[in-house]
C-alpha cells in the first residue's frame, strides 16, 4: 500500500466495498474494466520533480514509474482480490467512468463475459487542478450547477466499483440484486476539444442511443443525474439537450447534479453517479442539486433543490468529457 498512488487507494477502497457486498470469490478469467483520466498522476508528478531537482538520483524512481501506470493499478486490484482476467482501461476524460460501466455491460450483454468488475477512479493532483484553473473552469465561489449565476466547477476525487453479472449468475448465487443496467450510449462531440456543442447535439445523441439500446423513450425515465458541472458552457448545452430529448416530458422530469455535493470526480464521476442512481432507485429518493439558488432560465425541467422521496423505475446519468466523449447510462430499479 505504501507504494500506491492516492488514486489506487481510492480504487481499492471502493472495490473492497463492492466485492464484499457482492459475495464474489477469487477466480480466474474475470474481466476488469476501469475508467480514469490520470491514473497515478501524483506519482508521475513526483517522478518529474525528482528528475528536475536531482537528475542523477534514481532513488524510488523505478517504483514510482511502475505504480504511476494504470495497468499497475489494475494488477494491484486483481491481486488484492485474487482474480485474473483481461483488463480494459478506458481513458475518455470525464466520461471514462460511464464508458467503463457501459463497456462492461456490453461485454455481458453480448455474451463475452458472465461477470465483470467495473468502475472509475481518480485522485486529485497538481497538474489536474492547475489545468482546470488555467481554463478558468473552477468556481471561485460555490459550484452551482444549473444556476443562473453559476461560475464554474469544483473538483473532487474518488472511486466507484460495480460487480456486474448476468441475471442467471446472480440467481445461481442467490445474490441480492441492487439494480439493472439497461441502456448505454456513447458518441463523440467533434465541436471543440473542451467545449460542448452549444445545442448539446452529442449529449442528445448519447441519451437517444442509451434509450434505443434500452428500448425506452424519455417518457419512461423518472430521473436524470446530469453531468451538470456548474460551468456556464456545459450546463447550457446540457439543458438544451435535455429539453430537446425530453420534449413535453421535460417540464415534469426531475433533474439534479450531484456534483454540487461531491464535486466533479473526472474519470470516476460516471461510475460514482451510476452508484448514486442505484442508491436512489433502491432507497426511493432523488438527490438534490444542493447549492442551487436561482434556476437557469434555459432549464425547462425541474432541478431538484432538496432530496425528495420518489418511486421511479428508470434513472439516466450523463457524463461528458474533454475530447467530446459523451456517454449516457440507464439503470433500472430491481423488483
Amino acid at each position: 500500500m505504501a507504494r500506491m498512488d492516492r488514486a489506487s487507494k481510492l480504487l481499492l477502497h471502493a472495490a473492497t466495498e463492492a466485492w464484499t457486498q457482492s459475495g464474489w470469490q477469487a477466480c480466474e478469467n474475470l474481466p476488469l474494466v476501469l475508467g480514469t483520466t490520470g491514473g497515478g498522476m501524483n506519482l508521475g508528478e513526483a517522478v518529474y520533480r525528482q528528475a528536475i531537482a536531482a537528475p542523477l538520483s534514481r532513488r524510488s524512481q523505478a517504483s514510482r514509474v511502475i505504480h504511476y501506470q494504470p495497468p499497475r493499478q489494475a494488477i494491484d486490484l486483481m491481486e488484492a482480490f485474487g482474480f485474473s482476467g483481461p483488463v480494459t482501461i478506458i481513458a475518455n476524460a470525464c466520461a471514462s467512468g460511464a464508458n467503463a460501466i457501459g463497456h462492461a455491460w456490453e461485454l455481458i450483454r453480448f455474451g463475452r463475459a458472465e461477470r465483470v468488475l467495473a468502475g472509475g477512479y481518480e485522485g486529485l493532483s497538481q497538474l489536474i487542478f492547475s489545468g482546470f484553473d488555467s481554463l478558468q473552469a473552477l468556481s471561485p465561489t460555490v459550484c452551482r450547477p444549473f444556476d443562473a449565476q453559476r461560475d464554474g466547477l469544483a473538483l473532487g476525487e474518488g472511486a466507484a466499483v460495480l460487480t456486474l453479472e448476468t441475471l442467471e449468475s446472480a440467481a445461481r448465487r442467490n445474490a441480492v440484486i441492487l439494480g439493472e443496467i439497461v441502456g448505454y450510449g456513447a458518441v463523440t462531440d467533434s465541436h471543440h476539444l473542451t467545449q460542448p456543442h452549444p445545442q448539446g447535439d452529442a449529449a442528445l445523441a448519447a441519451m437517444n442511443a442509451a434509450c434505443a439500446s434500452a428500448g425506452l423513450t424519455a417518457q419512461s425515465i423518472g430521473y436524470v443525474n446530469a453531468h451538470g458541472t456548474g460551468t456556464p458552457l456545459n450546463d447550457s448545452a446540457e439543458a438544451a439537450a435535455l429539453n430537446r430529448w425530453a420534449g413535453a416530458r421535460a417540464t415534469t422530469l426531475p433533474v439534479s447534479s450531484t456534483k454540487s455535493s461531491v464535486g466533479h470526480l473526472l474519470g470516476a464521476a460516471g461510475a460514482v453517479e451510476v452508484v448514486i442512481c442505484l442508491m436512489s432507485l433502491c432507497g426511493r429518493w432523488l438527490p438534490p442539486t444542493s447549492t442551487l439558488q436561482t434556476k437557469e432560465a434555459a432549464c425547462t425541467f425541474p432541478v431538484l433543490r432538496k432530496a425528495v422521496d420518489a418511486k421511479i423505475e428508470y434513472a439516466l446519468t450523463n457524463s461528458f468529457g474533454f475530447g467530446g466523449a459523451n456517454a449516457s447510462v440507464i439503470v433500472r430499479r430491481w423488483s
Partner: protein
Amino acid sequence: MSGIVVKGFGAVSPAGWGAEALLNACRRGESAPFKEVACPGYKNPLKARFVPVASPKSAFTAHPRLRRTSPIAQFAVGAALEALGPDTPLIQNGARRLGIVYCSTSGCVNFSRRFYDETLKDASTASPVIFPETVFNAPSSHLGALLGSQGINYTIVGDQGTFLQGLALAADWLEADRVESCLVIGAEELDWLIAEAFDLFHRNKPISEGAGALHLAKRAPGGPAVNLQAVTQPQFFSTRADRRAAAERARKELGPQAEGDLLCDGIQGVPRLDRDEQQAWSGWGGERWSPKALLGEGFMAGAAWQCVAAVAALSSGLCDNATVSVLGFNQQAIAARFGKS
C-alpha cells in the same frame, strides 16, 4: 472473427511516414538511426529513434484542431488517414459510421511535462492551450473532429498488448453493427522524461515513437482481402504469474502454425527483454520479422507496427498468413493471426 477484413493500414515510424517505409525496413532489415535525447543533468545523453520530419508537411496539419497538437496526435492522424485511404470522404460526408479505438501507453507526455513544468514554475500562468492536449484522448478527439465523426470513440491505455485488444474490440463493434468500419490506432511520442524512465529498467536501450493503424470492416462480397482471423484472449500475468507462461498460452490458443506463416514478433535484440517471448515462440518454422529490433521500443506504436508489417506483407504477397505475437511489459501476452480470403 473470420468475417472481419482489413480495409487499409498506415504507419508512421522512425523508418518514415507511410507503411511502405515500415515494410521496406522489415524486408531489408534496416535499422533506423539514433538521435540523442538531452536529459537535464545527464553528462551523456540517452539515445532514441525519432520519426523523421514529414516532407512535405502533411496537409492535415492545416486543420484548426491539428495546428498546435503534440507529435503523438500528428502521428496518430497520419497513420489513420493512410489506413482510411480512399474511404476518408465516406466518413467525412457521413455515408459510413466509423468507430475509433485509439490505444496508447504513455499518451501525450510531451505536453503533460511542459504543462506540469509551467505549473511548478508559476501555476497562475500555466497555459490553457497546452492543458487540454494532455488528456489521453486528445489525439482520437482531433481525429474524430477532422473526420467529422460522431461515432463511438474509445481511448484505451495499457501495455503493448492493448493494441491487439483494440482489434478484438473493433471486431466486436463490427459484429454487433455498432459501426460500419473501425479504425484501430496505436501511437506514442518521445520525450526525455519517457526516455529516462525507460532507462531506469533497461540501460542504454533506445526507445522510439510513431503510430500504426488498421482500418477494419465486415467482409463484403467479391474480391480478395486480408482478414483478421483471430485474436487470442489477453493472457494476464503479474509479478506473481509467469510472463513466459502467458506467452505460451497465447501461442497455444492461436493453434498450429499455418502454411506460409510469417511471424511478426516483439523481439528487440535485448536478451533480458526478449527471453520470455523467444522461448514461448521457439521452433517457429517460417520467416520471422522483428520490427522493434529495427525501429526501437515504440510501446503501443510498436505493437501497431507489428500488425501493420504483417498485413503489409500479406497484401504484398510476401506470405500467405501472418501471426503477431505481443508480450507486454506488465499486463498481458496476446497474439493475432491475419490471412487472405
